[in-house]
């Protein structure tokens, strides 16, 4: 297990594609791991205090990581625990393993996630489990759970996996979704625009678009794309 703690209040954001793979390396190698500090390439050890405790494939990020981006990018296994808030693009293109964020998460959480699990105890931003700009498919597997509230654009172009928001969410839940499940326990805005498949379940209130037909299954649509997606009130 590697414990990483910011040394300073960063002047600009840091881009650090840290994955649990780092925990299999020696502490010297970890300190030399290259990260972007604005337009400078610096070593992880320059900006962060690093400790190694045991051989678990686990990273513990202690402190305010809200301006550290791309944590957990493309990870395949192991665990990352952020004891604080985390920056944008956390868990991007994740294939496996687990990320736990005890604070809040910023935008673009779990970009095109294919597997694994992300849990955020606080709130999350916009663009959770979505397709990146111009890509045709978003999340295809894995599980994202937000204990708090979430922003806009959740699970857009989803083709598998599960997203659960325990608090409230914004607009554009499951836009152009094809498969997978999104569950909102609180209330939210527009859901299922141009959805073709998959299921969206909402406990609280939401805004149904004028393109869904009521059936025993729930609301089926989006008729504009001859969709067979289902929206359910739970």
């Amino acid at each position: 297990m590697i414990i990483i703690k910011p040394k300073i209040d960063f002047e600009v954001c840091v881009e650090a594609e840290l994955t649990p793979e780092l925990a299999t390396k020696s502490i010297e190698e970890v300190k030399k791991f290259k990260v972007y500090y604005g337009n400078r390439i610096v070593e992880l050890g320059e900006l962060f205090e690093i400790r190694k405790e045991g051989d678990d494939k686990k990273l513990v990020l202690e402190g305010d990581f809200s301006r550290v981006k791309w944590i957990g990018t493309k990870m395949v296994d192991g665990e990352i625990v952020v004891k604080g808030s985390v920056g944008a693009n956390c868990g991007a293109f994740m294939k496996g393993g687990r990320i736990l964020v005890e604070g809040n998460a910023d935008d673009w959480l779990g970009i095109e996630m294919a597997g694994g699990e992300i849990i955020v105890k606080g709130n999350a931003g916009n663009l959770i489990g979505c397709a990146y700009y111009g890509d045709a498919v978003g999340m295809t597997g894995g599980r994202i759970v937000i204990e708090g509230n979430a922003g806009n654009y959740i699970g857009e172009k989803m083709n598998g996996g599960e997203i659960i928001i325990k608090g409230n969410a914004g607009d554009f839940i499951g836009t152009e979704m094809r498969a997978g499940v999104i569950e909102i326990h609180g209330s939210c805005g527009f859901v299922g625009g141009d959805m073709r498949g998959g299921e969206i379940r909402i406990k609280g209130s939401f805004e149904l678009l004028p393109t869904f037909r009521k059936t025993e299954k729930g609301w089926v649509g989006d008729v504009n794309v001859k969709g067979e997606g289902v929206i359910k009130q739970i």
Partner: protein
Amino acid sequence: MLWIKNGIVVDPKNKINLEKMDIFVKNGKIVPESEIKKGDCRVIDASGKLVVAGGVDMHAHIAGGKINTGRTMRPEEMRVVRNIAGKFRASVGRVLLTAPAIGYEYAKMGYTTSFEAATPPVSSLHTHEELDSIPMIDKAALPVFGNWHLVFKCIEEKNIEKLKALLAWAIERSKGFGVKVVNPGGVEAWMYGGNVKNLDDQVPGFGVTPREIITWLIRANEGLGLPHSVHLHCNNLGVPGNYQTTIESIKLAKGFKNEKRQVLHVTHVQFNAYSGSSWRDFGSGAAEIAKVVNSMDNVTIDMGQPIFGHATAMTGDAPFQFTLHKLLGARWSNKDTEVETGAGIVPIGYLPNNPVHAVQWAIGLELGLLTESDKVALTTDYPNGGPFTEYPYIMAMLMSKKMREGELKKVHQYVQKATNLPSIDVEKTLYEVIHMTRSLPARILGLENKGHLGIGADADIAIYNLNPLETDFSNEFEKVYKAFKVAEFTIKGGEVIVRNGELLKEVYGRTFWVDARKKVDLEVVMQDVKNYFQYYSLQLSNYGVEERWLKKPERLEVV
């Protein structure tokens, strides 16, 4: 001063085939040995290497509004990083490329001239701003005329002098190079939601037909004696059975004659070479078209070869682009442009196991193989068919039946019955393929100093790490492909700009434009232009591009 020593030269314009010779360069031109001092020369030892003129791409979509909208639409294309900023510019793009990337990639491949295939006259300044941002190559742009109301009116009046004056005026105002015609009449029909299907269809709102548009423009173009001929994108592009329209269009050249070059160039013929009546019985009409082209002495074509992988359909053929959008359910951009033309953009891809794509791929090759090498230039209609960086793939395929056999195994078997490609044994020679990529396109365009290595030519030279005397082009196609992908040396105007894929020096080429105003009396048409300008949304005095706004304009005057 440059001395390229002992290279194996292939220069079809000057009938040089695999001769060991020295090439001398001074002040950006190829000069005789007597004009240089060997001691003062930078020497490039080209022993055992192929030396040819820099490639000439006579039809590519490299600059202007529709290219830029294509980029904007496709961030997934722009995420491929080719060069990190440092001594040179950052360069990105998968098939669609940024302006710096276009210049760098052409240069790495040994190409030194490229022509933007279609620019809406009213937005020529945008095209030129983009061309000016492309480093390394010499360039020009072809303004479009086939759907311009002003052109229709001259033809309605059957007034050849007016049409000639209009062309001269328009080409000067757009700082363009020639007369491009895209789906004549069809784009105007699209303004009403339609298209034209037949050369004798009436264009809505005007008493003209596509047949008349093409024929009159050829007459006017030849009457003016422009360096390039009418450059035609035929009607019915992309429609099964369209090869008939293409043959009919080609035959419109009958009766016209030009000593120096063709009177009609038909472009990306692959997209217009389909037999059948629907996508279900779709097949190849390439053999029929090649036969007609071979039988005529005043028509040239270029291939429009598809390359498997990503591509973007972008043309002035707005109705076709909408049809493609409906067919594929893909994203679609459109730009109806004043009273001049239109455009459309749709992201596409070519998959080897898709029967339609496989046939398209085969058709391009059929055209390249069956048409006489003096009449067919090599293009992909970038980015419609695919990247220009794969021209070496096409070159290698034209020269090797074995390579084609290997590729045929990977594509959908429908190709076997829908095309003749499997049975074509033709293997073009290196001489022919160099002609199709250098001397022929230069001649087609009317560029006397390009595409060859004779005295007086621009010193645009490519040296490839390939010994043509020791290469078995039929069997060593992998080696051939690799050699042409990355030039050992690319020389532009006498400067060594790239070596083995590494950028050495950034230069900016010239923008050629044609001035034929002395051949006409502009007054003959100016009143009509002034009157019609009420239908434009800008002032006539603000229409056009002044030479001093361009970085390095080079005026070709027609006398």
